[in-house]
């Protein structure tokens, strides 16, 4: 199967990107290496091509009711311009995807993970019976770029018609960018201030080039999926396929805030009521290792007596903290901050301690 490409594919290659397959797409993993790109986002800004993310538009009289039926958060509480983190769950309460739901005056938008786009489109198609809703996949026609970091606002504001400084976190606006119809939102997946921009695919290169030109003397860099992962991990944001999957319920994953059991019926609600009642469920914790070795996905976690108690879902060398960090699922009794544990890295037992999540939180 040939890989999908975003409208910025040639631009990545022209900027020296190393490309890898991700969720069926040919995407830049890094242009230089992970560390400098990571630091650029924390200290200046980084530009991420996120056009691989699925974007699905919902119109029609039942759009709100339909989305409330297929997602766990309460769509009805959204005012125009507001965005919410939510989950699509199956009847068993397993997570099919973690998503963002955007409400605009005329329509709703769902942003889904690249690797889950087709699965979610198929799932929505199966669930739409009895709802008067039109579902449109905008992924190919619209480009999407994230500009993340403390300088993001000064890079993007001059290109945008609307006053984006007025946007609070998790809101967005329909406006113009480069004179084109666009959506600008104050969202991201890095733990840093920043924006995500959607505009027609025809203007992808112009947007990326203008943002980079505006910031390159201040340390702004194009940033690949490599640092996107280290950034989101420091911010303790879950990644589908790692912290989340169809056999993990949202409460175990620590995402209770995105599940509104009292909003009325929705797919998976009965199972989720039971999952919430099961207080013996494992917990998602942060681990900090005693040495710099990386506890990668699947690394086994032990208590100090040597009993296996859990596994790592993501781990990396945190560029900001200069420590080895990981997220893991462990039983409740081992989840308290300060608990001493061990991980097995290629046969070596390495001391690890449960630490507070997120590992990194920006000063506000």
């Amino acid at each position, binding site marked *: 199967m040939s890989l999908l490409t975003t409208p910025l594919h040639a631009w990545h290659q022209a900027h020296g990107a190393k490309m890898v397959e991700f969720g069926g797409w040919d995407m830049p993993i890094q242009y230089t290496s992970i*560390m400098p790109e990571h630091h650029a986002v924390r200290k200046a800004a980084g530009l991420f091509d996120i056009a691989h993310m699925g974007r699905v538009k919902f119109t029609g009289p039942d759009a709100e009711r339909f989305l409330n039926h297929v997602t766990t958060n309460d769509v009805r509480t959204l005012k125009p311009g507001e965005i919410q983190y939510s989950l699509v769950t199956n009847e068993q309460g397993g997570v099919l995807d973690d998503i963002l739901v955007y409400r605009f005056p005329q329509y709703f938008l769902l942003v889904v993970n690249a690797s889950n786009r087709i699965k979610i489109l198929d799932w929505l198609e199966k669930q739409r019976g009895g709802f008067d809703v039109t579902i449109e996949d905008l992924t190919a026609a619209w480009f999407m770029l994230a500009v993340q970091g403390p300088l993001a606002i000064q890079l993007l504001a001059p290109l945008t018609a609307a006053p984006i400084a007025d946007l609070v976190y998790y809101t967005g606006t329909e406006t113009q960018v480069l004179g084109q119809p666009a959506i600008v939102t104050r969202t991201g997946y890095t733990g840093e201030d920043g924006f995500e921009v959607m505009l027609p695919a025809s203007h992808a290169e112009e947007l990326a080039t203008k943002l980079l030109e505006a910031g390159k003397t201040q340390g702004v860099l194009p940033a690949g999926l490599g640092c996107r992962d280290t950034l989101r991990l420091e911010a303790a944001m879950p990644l589908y396929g790692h912290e989340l999957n169809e056999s993990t319920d949202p409460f175990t994953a620590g995402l209770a805030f995105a599940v509104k059991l009292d909003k009325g019926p929705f797919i998976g609600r009965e199972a989720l009521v039971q999952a919430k009642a099961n207080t013996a469920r494992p917990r998602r914790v942060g681990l900090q290792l005693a040495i710099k*070795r990386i506890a*990668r996905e699947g690394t086994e976690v032990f208590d100090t007596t040597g009993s296996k108690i859990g596994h790592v879902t993501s781990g990396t060398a945190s560029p900001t903290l200069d420590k080895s960090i990981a997220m893991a699922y462990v039983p409740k009794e081992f989840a308290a901050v300060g608990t001493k544990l061990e991980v097995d890295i290629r046969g070596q037992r390495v001391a690890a301690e449960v630490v507070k999540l997120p590992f990194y939180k920006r000063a506000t």
Partner: protein
Amino acid sequence: MDRSQLKFAKTDEWLALEGDVATVGITDVAVEALTDLVYLALPTVGKQYKAGTPFGEVESVKAASDLYAPVTGEVIAVNEDLPNNLDWLSADAFGKGWIVKFKVAPGTTLDHLMDAKGYAAYWDTRAH
């Protein structure tokens, strides 16, 4: 270290032989491909290794890799400061970035290793 005097293994170690002492490190191109090194495990002085067996590990944000002994011999010295100065591996792979010295076993030959030109050609055949 003069690169033209070095020998190279397919597993990206370099070797410099002086008398019966082989100094071993990892090549600059291999370090560059690993990028963002975070950890290096050194062997213990006195330990014996057979050619082709792992004697240590190097880990980057991307992956962990074993280091393989290019010759059979006994570890007589390790670069103890290197694990805390991993940038030496990228800045000076064939000098300050040396990893270990082996006293090679009697009768050791280097015929199974490549010269600089052969290694460069071999490197280019691999996907990175």
